[in-house]
């Protein structure tokens, strides 16, 4: 006799799964689901459970499918996973696909106005009367669609055991204490949870339990962190042009500057932000400000960075300090503007014409986005050169559980900047006339004066054309070569003062892994999986270019090192190969780009497959 669907589902005896699963929310872009998803993420975090949230969204304002994934993991592994344990389906257009991603025994929660048949019988399906519940609530019709997503928050809270108090706290944080918004959303959540309690019989095995896994952590995104880092690093000028996924970095500056950067005595602003007419102008403004003695920065992504390349070359050659945040997205061209990548490493390292190179920093967590936010400003002024922070969309636009921001442990470092009395002292110390491009210390870094310095010897004319040590125009062959070689010395000076790599080892590890940036959680989880499969690994997370000697030593110490990254060509491996050609045969490429963050499983499978060769 054929079983009915309900009977089949009833016959599955699911294993109990606590604090270790993945939920995907499938909604329509612009329907206001971000609030609902964010509230759930924060409520789980407030219960002390390690969580991560990733938004997979289209380049569109309203109408196209969008997904949000929350991973709950008691062991703190928070990389993307490819299959879903729970799917919340609110978008009829993608319903059938969604069902396909569920693991056997998984949960499907769906809006009951979706009439597409549920084709799988090895899952638990719970329809939700979304329209009915929202109709019964006292909600203005124009807000009904937005608040509809709160229904799944309430139903999930009941099914998984999410504390409603924590949800209320999460709403409070999300709406920054605005009672009206908090209350109207909470009413729907509470009513939906009540409806679920009265009408749904829980058969699946998934649940959450409070734990103590988030102590010392905060929940925020990399763009907010980068902006706050810059504010604590004393940024004084920023110019920018809107571009996904970098815009929210500059918007965060605007949000936090008024409270954080008013002069204590005068109440005046100590940082100015200008929205430029394009990236050509944004970088021009930042070069001007950096040249005139302001701690100066901009933020952009691939296409914007391409537009900035000429001014970056000028800044390199005229030795102007500034910081650029490159929040990477998928290229070439417009590419996939709302998807993540590490595909600008090679192009950014040499971004302008002529012999150039640039200092790159690679934050490997949202906390490091904060840390590199202030460090980059110090390094730029110390080295008198552009410093480019290589973040990506995954960091920039997703909320991460990350270590609390730590107060800078070194004072603001303005580098070799000379005001009137400093200039006299320098001339006395070195017993010679100061010149803008004289390498008095032998470290490739000259001393600089800035506009407004009234010392009679301070002024000079900065030019992108050939210039000598006194900043005078010169086309002399030996002057040109001397100047360019001196700039090379500066990059040797840079190596030891840039952020060191982070190296994690295992006893008896036989192979090495190198990675940078947002792939860190996937790599760490893959190492655990590989160890279980019998392959122990050491891991070196690169945090800056030009390369630190410790990275070179790491590669030399391993017969094989896999370089894991999100791009087609293995760009980090390309750069390492250029720097240490004699070791390049020990490097193996593990790279992949499809717009999604790497999963631990993919990293593990790729390395195992190459090991078997």
């Amino acid at each position: 006799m054929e079983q009915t669907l309900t009977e089949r589902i009833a016959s599955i005896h699911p294993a109990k799964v606590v604090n270790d699963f993945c939920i995907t929310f499938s909604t329509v872009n612009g329907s206001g689901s971000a609030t609902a998803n964010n509230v759930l993420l924060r409520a789980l975090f407030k219960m002390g459970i390690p969580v991560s949230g990733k938004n997979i969204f289209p380049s569109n304002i309203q109408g196209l499918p969008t997904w949000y994934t929350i991973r709950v993991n008691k062991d703190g592994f928070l990389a993307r996973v490819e299959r879903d344990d729970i799917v919340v389906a609110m978008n009829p257009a993608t319903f059938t696909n969604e069902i396909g991603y569920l693991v056997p025994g998984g949960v499907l929660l769906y809006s009951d106005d979706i009439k597409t048949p549920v084709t799988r019988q090895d899952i638990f399906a719970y329809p939700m009367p979304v329209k009915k519940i929202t109709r019964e609530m006292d909600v203005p019709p124009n807000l009904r669609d937005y608040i509809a997503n709160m229904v799944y928050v309430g139903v999930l809270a009941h099914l998984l055991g999410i504390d409603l108090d924590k949800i209320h706290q999460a709403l409070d944080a999300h709406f920054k204490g605005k009672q009206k918004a908090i209350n109207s959303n909470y009413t729907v959540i509470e009513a939906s949870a009540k409806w679920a309690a009265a009408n749904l019989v829980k058969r699946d095995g998934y649940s959450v339990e409070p734990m103590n896994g988030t102590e010392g952590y905060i929940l925020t995104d990399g763009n907010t962190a980068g902006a706050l880092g810059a504010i604590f690093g004393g940024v004084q000028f920023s110019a920018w042009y809107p571009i996904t996924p970098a815009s929210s970095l500059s918007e965060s500056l605007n949000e936090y500057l008024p409270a954080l950067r008013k002069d204590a005595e005068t109440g005046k602003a100590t940082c100015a932000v200008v929205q430029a007419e394009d990236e050509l102008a944004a970088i021009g403004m930042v070069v001007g400000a950096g040249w005139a003695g302001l701690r100066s920065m901009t933020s952009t992504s691939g296409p914007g960075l391409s537009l900035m390349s000429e001014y970056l070359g000028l800044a390199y050659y005229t030795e102007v300090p500034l910081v650029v945040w490159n929040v990477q997205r998928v290229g070439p061209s417009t590419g996939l503007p709302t998807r993540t990548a590490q595909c600008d490493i090679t192009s950014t390292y040499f971004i302008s014409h002529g012999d150039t190179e640039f200092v790159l920093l690679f934050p490997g967590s949202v906390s490091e986005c904060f840390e590199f936010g202030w460090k980059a400003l110090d390094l730029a002024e110390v080295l008198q050169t552009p410093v480019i922070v290589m973040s990506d969309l995954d960091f920039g636009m997703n909320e991460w559980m990350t270590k609390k921001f730590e107060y800078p442990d070194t004072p603001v470092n303005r580098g070799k900047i000379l005001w009137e009395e400093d200039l006299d002292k320098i001339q006395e110390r070195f017993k010679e006339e100061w010149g803008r491009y004289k390498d008095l210390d032998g470290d490739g870094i000259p001393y600089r004066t800035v506009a407004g310095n009234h010392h009679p010897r301070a002024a000079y004319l900065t030019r992108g054309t050939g210039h000598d040590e006194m900043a005078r125009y010169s086309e002399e062959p030996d002057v040109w070569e001397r100047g360019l070689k001196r700039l090379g010395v500066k990059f040797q000076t840079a190596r030891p003062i840039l952020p060191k790599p982070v190296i994690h080892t295992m006893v008896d590890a036989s192979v090495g892994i190198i990675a940078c940036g947002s792939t860190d959680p996937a790599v760490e989880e893959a190492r655990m999986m590989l160890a279980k499969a019998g392959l122990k690994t050491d891991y070196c997370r690169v945090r800056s270019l030009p390369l630190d000697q410790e990275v070179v030593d790491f590669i030399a110490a391993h017969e094989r090192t896999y370089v894991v990254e999100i791009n087609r060509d293995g760009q980090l491996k390309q750069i390492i190969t250029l720097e240490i050609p004699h070791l390049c045969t020990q490097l193996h490429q593990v790279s992949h780009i499809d717009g999604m963050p790497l999963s631990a499983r993919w990293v593990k499978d790729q390395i195992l497959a190459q090991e078997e060769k």
Partner: protein
Amino acid sequence: MVDQVQAVKPSLNLAGLSRSDYRGSPSTLCQGCGHNSIANQIISACYELNIIPDNVVKFSGIGCSSKSPTYFLNRAFGFNGLHGRMPSLALGAMFADTSLKGIGISGDGDTASIGLGQFKHMVRRNLPFVYIIENNGVYGLTKGQFSATSEKDLHLKRQGVNPYSPIDICMEALASNATFVARSFAGDPKQVKELIKAAFSHDGIAILDIISPCVTFHNQENSLHSYVWGKEHEIQLHELSYVAPRDEITVEDFEEGTTREVYLHDGSQIVLKKLEKDYDPTDRWQAFRILEAAQKNNWLVTGLIYVDPTQPTMFDAYDLPETPLNRISADKLRPSRGMLDQINESF
């Protein structure tokens, strides 16, 4: 004896400086180039205004004109930036110390072609800045190609005939709500100087489009950008004098009833002596009309075309401290540990 000593002593201005304190390096431009004459008028204007050279910051883009900042005010900081992108460079730099005066030298290629966007955006922001376009209607440094201000049907030796209509820089400035728009002719040094002085006193963007003939590639008698044509076709809107705040205007200088005064932000005045035309430079529509008429009638209209000294500047939109931003001490730039604790709490 005493008289003899005084005769050889260079005369000092109120800043205690001699004219040579305003000099730059020797020009490397062609002899007779209009740009050199403009550089000399900048020197004279700054000297007569008693501006201390290190209170000026000079900027330029790329081209013959953009070499000019080397030829005046050696004691001022300067930055020779990228082609067409001097405005953004200057804007960022001027935020460092708003007490400094900014002057930018650009050309018609630099401003009206690659730089048209940055030019107009700088204008719309009303950054306090003297923006001089040395307009010769030709690309000199790349040896004589048409520029965006070259007149239609112009014939150049190796280029043939220009098929496109020119861009009128003053018109573009006006359309973008410029608060000071003037046109002059390098062959009329007195007017150039008076306009530069007025521009320095204007609190806002001051656009000076100066027709500056290129003696090497573009000085044909029939061309708008030549000395001969300019001298023959120049129509001055007024006789223009700049009066510093402390100078007293005497009735003998200006015949009553024939003058119009415009007061600038610092208390100085521009006194405009009416010529045959009764022109009001504070009337934006009249400014548009005169530019339109000039185009139709083949006039080179010079003088102060438009001024509005009352508009807020870019800096008025920012609540900046009196201490220049670039002199604020490092310890004042970092918020407290307590503030970071509060932020961590909020996440």
